[in-house]
């Protein structure tokens, strides 16, 4: 055990409260115990790999890579929550990644340069917009078949899994399409595609201010209506732990520095002289995209009418229908959102690989669904959270990367991830039966 500082909020919140007494404290703080359980699971996984890897796992370099690897799956998992909450499933996202990735690559490499000239600054904008439109169109198309024709989502998207992979292959003629536009590549997070150390601190500062503002505003609203208030100490603890976690994460990840060649170029480009300075890379761009997507999707799920309807449909479709909700159109919209998020992930993956092939995103659907389910989304519908799925993606990716790091063979990795998925759902259903929620 080399280090005790980890950017996980768990590590800063002291010992893991388990069992009866903590349940009371958590309830009074109005913290979701399942979210807390997931943080605890994550802490255990990290600790085990830290010991097993002789202190490499919780190094700034590895955690930085972990954050980057989590992004693509995590972005899609935030949408998969809504899909599963409405009692549907989307098995086609991996194949959609391929067809969207190949399309965006072809636009940049073949189609647009002929028309606009190579290196035109509009190329990446048009490619990305076209990819997002394609994602929305595919999602909407599948959604219409599911909601209006009445074919089960499992079948429609199973068909999509085969169809879109095939279309990707046909479009790419089985070739690798490369290289990507240089601006587009910034979406991928490799090399210099990071926001830098200062911006990372600014982002962490904004996040802290935002958290505290949300707590204060929430309190004010409750006071205005004369509602019972959460005890002030609970708000303070939540604010302090949250802020500390964010700042600690920023500080820790900022200790991952640019490789020497990149640092030299960076310093010399800004007119200085390179004397072996250590320059933090800062958060990778996909991680920032992931965080922004997570915030937007949390907002959509909890603060908008659309989000409320998604959960109502999952809880009781007939009640939603009788309440005057356009349930079918809402489901189509859910699949459109899933398609857009898939396109964003496809852009990230294509940019990171600096190429697209028809094999891009293979098995991604399973990792995305696993992330949502590990994150507490119920396949029976009606229950799930976006932050839970984001954490679920981090848990799944931690296992995956950890096993790669300590040299576990690929088939064994699959066995472990498979078992963890089943155990996570089993624990969750046991918990639900116990508290009857």
């Amino acid at each position, binding site marked *: 055990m080399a280090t005790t500082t980890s950017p996980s909020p768990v590590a800063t919140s002291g010992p893991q409260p388990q069992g009866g007494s903590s349940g009371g404290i958590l309830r009074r703080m109005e913290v979701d115990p399942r979210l807390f359980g997931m943080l605890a699971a994550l802490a255990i996984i990290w600790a085990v790999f830290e010991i097993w890897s002789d202190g490499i796992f919780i190094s700034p370099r590895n955690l930085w890579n972990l954050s980057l690897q989590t992004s693509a799956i995590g972005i899609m998992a935030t949408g998969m929550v809504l899909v599963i909450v409405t009692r549907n499933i989307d098995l086609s996202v991996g194949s959609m990644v391929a067809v969207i990735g190949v399309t965006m690559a072809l636009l940049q490499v073949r189609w647009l340069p002929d028309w606009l000239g190579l290196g035109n600054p509009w190329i990446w904008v048009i490619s990305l917009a076209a990819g997002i439109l394609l994602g929305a169109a595919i999602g909407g198309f599948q959604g219409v078949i599911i909601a209006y024709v009445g074919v089960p989502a499992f079948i429609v998207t199973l068909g999509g899994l085969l169809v879109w992979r095939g279309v990707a292959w046909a479009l790419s003629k089985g070739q690798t399409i490369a290289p990507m536009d240089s601006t587009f590549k910034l979406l991928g997070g490799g090399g210099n595609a990071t926001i830098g150390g200062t911006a990372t601190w600014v982002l962490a500062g904004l996040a802290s201010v935002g958290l505290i503002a949300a707590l204060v505003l929430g309190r004010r*609203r*409750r006071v*205005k*209506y004369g*509602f019972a208030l959460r005890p002030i100490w609970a708000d303070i603890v939540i604010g302090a732990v949250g802020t500390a976690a964010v700042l600690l994460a920023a500080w820790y990840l900022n200790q991952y520095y640019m490789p020497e060649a990149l640092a030299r170029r960076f310093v010399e480009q800004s007119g200085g002289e390179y004397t072996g300075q250590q320059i933090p890379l800062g958060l990778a761009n996909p991680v920032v995209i992931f965080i922004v997507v997570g915030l937007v999707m949390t*907002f959509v799920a*909890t*603060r*908008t*009418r659309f*989000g*409320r309807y998604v*959960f*109502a449909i*999952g*809880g*009781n479709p*007939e*009640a*939603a229908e*009788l*309440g*005057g*909700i356009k349930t079918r159109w809402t489901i189509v919209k859910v699949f459109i959102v899933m398609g857009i998020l898939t396109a964003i992930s496809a852009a990230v993956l294509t940019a990171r690989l600096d190429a697209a092939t028809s094999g891009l995103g293979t098995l991604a659907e399973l990792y995305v669904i696993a992330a949502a389910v590990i994150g507490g989304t119920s396949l029976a519908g*009606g*229950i799930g959270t976006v932050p839970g799925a984001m954490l679920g993606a981090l848990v799944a990716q931690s296992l995956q990367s950890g096993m790669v790091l300590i040299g576990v063979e690929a088939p064994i990795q699959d066995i472990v991830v498979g078992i963890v998925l089943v155990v996570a759902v089993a624990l969750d259903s046991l918990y639900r039966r116990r508290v*009857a*929620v």
Partner: protein
Amino acid sequence: MTAVTDAPVPTEQRTPLVQMNDIRVSFGGVHAVDGVSIDLFPGEVVALVGGNGAGKTTLIKTLSGAHKADGGQIVINGQPVTINSPRDARLLGVETIYQTLALADNLDAPANIFLGRELRTRWRTLDDTAMQDATYKLMARLNPRFKNFKAPVMSLSGGQRQSVAIARAVHFDARILIMDEPTAALGPAETEEVRQLIRQLRSEGLGIFLISHDIHDVFDLADRISVMMTGKLVGTVNKDDVTQDQVLAMIIAGKHPEEVTQADIEDLHR
């Protein structure tokens, strides 16, 4: 002796809230509802009773907008209306509490009460605080014992769930309430809780159609009783003019009260 009332005695002078005239609904060749006429006045509970398949639920669904009538006319407050969807019915002040309650079990009471009609802030986001506040006020009036405002309604008792369904119906200025088997599947204390609620709503001037199998509910709550059998109206009687046995005979034998003989009643008790 009893009288079959075409117009109820105490409310003769007023305009009925609802008049359903000669309503017909067929499924294929089957006449589920065959030329039924009933009415409802403000501050009145009209019970709709009859055996399984008598057509009570189908009839009332034409008023709640869940089903279209094939013939007949619905008049609300003296105005002929067309009801094609639950939304139409709501706009006319008709609210329905289904036997299944139609609650989203994973959402809390305020979310259910405002389902489909959410309050929003000026940023067009959900105003959960305002909805919670409105729910507090609503429950203070309807059921002061209601406590669990933030728990998913699946964790509430049957009576409390019924309270949520009723609160949802009355919050939006409903004038006509349709209740389908409100006390089925409730314990004695909860049944009393719901009955109290119905009395409260009647005293506030709402008109209530009560569909029930429970003859005790019917006699406890209803002002008038409309009996249906095989899609036809057997008759409508004032509760105070009839005995439970006479109503049972209407339900089972399909006879008007004045036709019910002592032998029929003895049959019931055999």
